[in-house]
């Protein structure tokens, strides 16, 4: 049985249809990423699943319990980290954690013990007895997530956990989420960042205008939209006939469609998803061609998003600003290269 199940959820705010028939499930001990641009309906979905908002229609269960019929029992099983860090600035980190423990009926001793555990686990021991007002953005986020875990929830909801964090805190947050996941925390997170979903999620639902427009594992989504390319860099002294010979040698791997790029120095062609670098090197060798370099590039989720929505996720300022910040130089270069040519 899935831990989270949402069937045909719809919700409108006045004229705005925030959700129009959203379906999703989260299996035990997996991470589902709900990926979509600003205004897609991600937060509304999280609010419905965490009992904060009633759906207009459709239904949802957590651990088999209906979120509308038995909200109190659902609340006992979930942890919510909202889009903005919900910590009490006037209290210390420890007091924030103990407060939640007492709300979960923990005894004073147990609440203190659990607070210590979480402060240790979230690298907040030194800051634990300081007032939260002085915490950095990353520390607040960590405390926020720790507060969601006080009662060992069956499922953790993270609404845009890295939005607004600087690249370093963002990487740290990814590592933190990965370690939670490694322990088996069932997690549903929302994000506008393609690389984030790619890195953290077991499965992804892509949401736009309140509905799921694609779902699958990161790999499946990439495969479905194709976009694998081979780039062959030619030797400086290559003759004018070489590019055509390279294209011919790669014929067994190519997908339908024109050669993407070809000149005296470089050939780029679209290939099937199962193409590997050794395959390509082998075929070039067999044709007696000597080249400077061969790279097989997998499409990024940027390409996926472009293919699905017709508008790149990079339209979103946040993605372009921060999204590439933690990437290596080559990957971002690849990304621009593929997305510029991959428009279907």
């Amino acid at each position, binding site marked *: 049985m899935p831990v989270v199940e949402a069937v045909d959820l719809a919700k409108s705010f006045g004229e705005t249809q925030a959700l129009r028939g959203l379906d999703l499930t989260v299996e035990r001990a997996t991470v589902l990423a709900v990926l979509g641009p600003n205004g897609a309906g991600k937060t509304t979905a999280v609010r419905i699943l965490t*009992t904060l908002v009633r759906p207009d229609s459709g239904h949802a269960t957590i651990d088999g319990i209906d979120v509308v019929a038995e909200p109190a029992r659902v609340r*006992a*099983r979930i942890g919510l980290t909202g889009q903005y860090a919900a910590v009490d600035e006037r209290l210390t980190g420890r007091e924030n954690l103990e407060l939640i423990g007492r709300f979960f009926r923990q005894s004073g001793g147990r609440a203190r013990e659990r607070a210590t555990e979480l402060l240790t686990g979230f690298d907040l021991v030194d800051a634990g007895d300081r007032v939260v007002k002085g915490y950095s953005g990353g520390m607040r986020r960590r405390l926020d997530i720790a507060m969601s875990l006080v009662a060992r929830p069956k499922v953790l909801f993270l609404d845009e956990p890295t939005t607004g964090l600087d690249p370093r805190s963002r990487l740290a947050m990814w590592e933190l989420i990965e370690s939670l996941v490694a322990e088996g925390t069932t997690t549903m997170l929302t994000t506008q960042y393609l690389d984030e979903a790619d890195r953290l999620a077991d499965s992804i639902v892509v949401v736009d205008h309140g509905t799921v427009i694609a779902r699958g594992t990161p790999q499946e989504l990439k495969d479905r939209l194709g976009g694998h390319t081979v780039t062959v860099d030619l030797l400086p002294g290559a003759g004018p006939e070489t590019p055509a010979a390279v294209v011919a040698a790669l014929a067994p791997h190519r997908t339908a469609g024109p050669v993407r790029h070809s000149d005296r120095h470089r050939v780029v062609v679209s290939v099937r998803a199962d193409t590997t670098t050794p395959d390509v090197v082998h075929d070039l060798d067999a044709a007696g061609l000597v080249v400077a370099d061969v790279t097989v590039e997998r499409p990024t989720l940027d390409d996926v998003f472009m293919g699905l929505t017709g508008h790149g996720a990079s339209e979103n300022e946040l993605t372009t600003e921060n999204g590439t910040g933690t990437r290596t130089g080559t990957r971002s270069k690849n990304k621009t290269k593929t997305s510029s040519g991959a428009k279907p």
Partner: protein
Amino acid sequence: MTTQLSDSATDSGPVTDAEFVEPPQTVIWALRDSWNEATRHLRAVPRNLDLLIFATLQPIMFVLLFRYVFGGSISVPGFSYNQYLMPGIFAQTMVFGSGFTGIGLAEDLQRGFIDRLRSLPISQSAVLVGRTVSDLLRNLLTFAVMLAVAFAIGFRFEGGLVRGIGASGLLLFFSYAFSWIQALIGLSVKSVEAANSGGFLWMFPMTFVSSAFVPTEDMPSWLAKVADANPFTVATNAARALYNGNDPGSDVWQALAWATGITVVFATLAIRRFTRTASR
């Protein structure tokens, strides 16, 4: 990470974890939740001493300004102006103190803390009860300081200690009732700034068009009618009579009825609003 931070994949099946409590929705637990929430705010009071100091300086300033600036020019038959004025200032300070409730709730909403609280398996009304009770206790503190200053400049419980305490309790009850009006405002507006102006603006005419500072007989007759019908006038008159040992007539009962009615009506509205609202 070595500590076990969350529910592990290995413990599958229905809920058996000892940490997992089915929330018993009993009155006792609702009260404990409320107190837990109240302590969240009370803990913060000594840490924001400057806030508390300013909150008490203002009424002290009022006490001194009215006493010494207007005191000479306003005369009230049957009273020294000091004995007449102080209960009015106490009453005004107490209802103004209720404004913190709306601002605090609007802040919690804006910061997303209300979402967090609403996602916990606690009594929903506890969040508002906790908030209003902590504001009541803070107002009690303000009141104590203000009384001390008033005593220093010659104010006395002329009706005796019991009535003096009764009058103070009545005003605190009024302040508590108004906290629920402010709670509804704080939950209904879109920002902290709006909670601030929306919460305080109407309290100025309410407290000045009343018997708090001058007898209503001195007002133009149409205004006097409004002032006499003002529940704030009723509460002020009741407290003033008790402090001075005069016969309050039916004012005490009327004031209690007003405070009870406001509390019941606005607590119902605010709690209903709360369960349907979400952080912005």
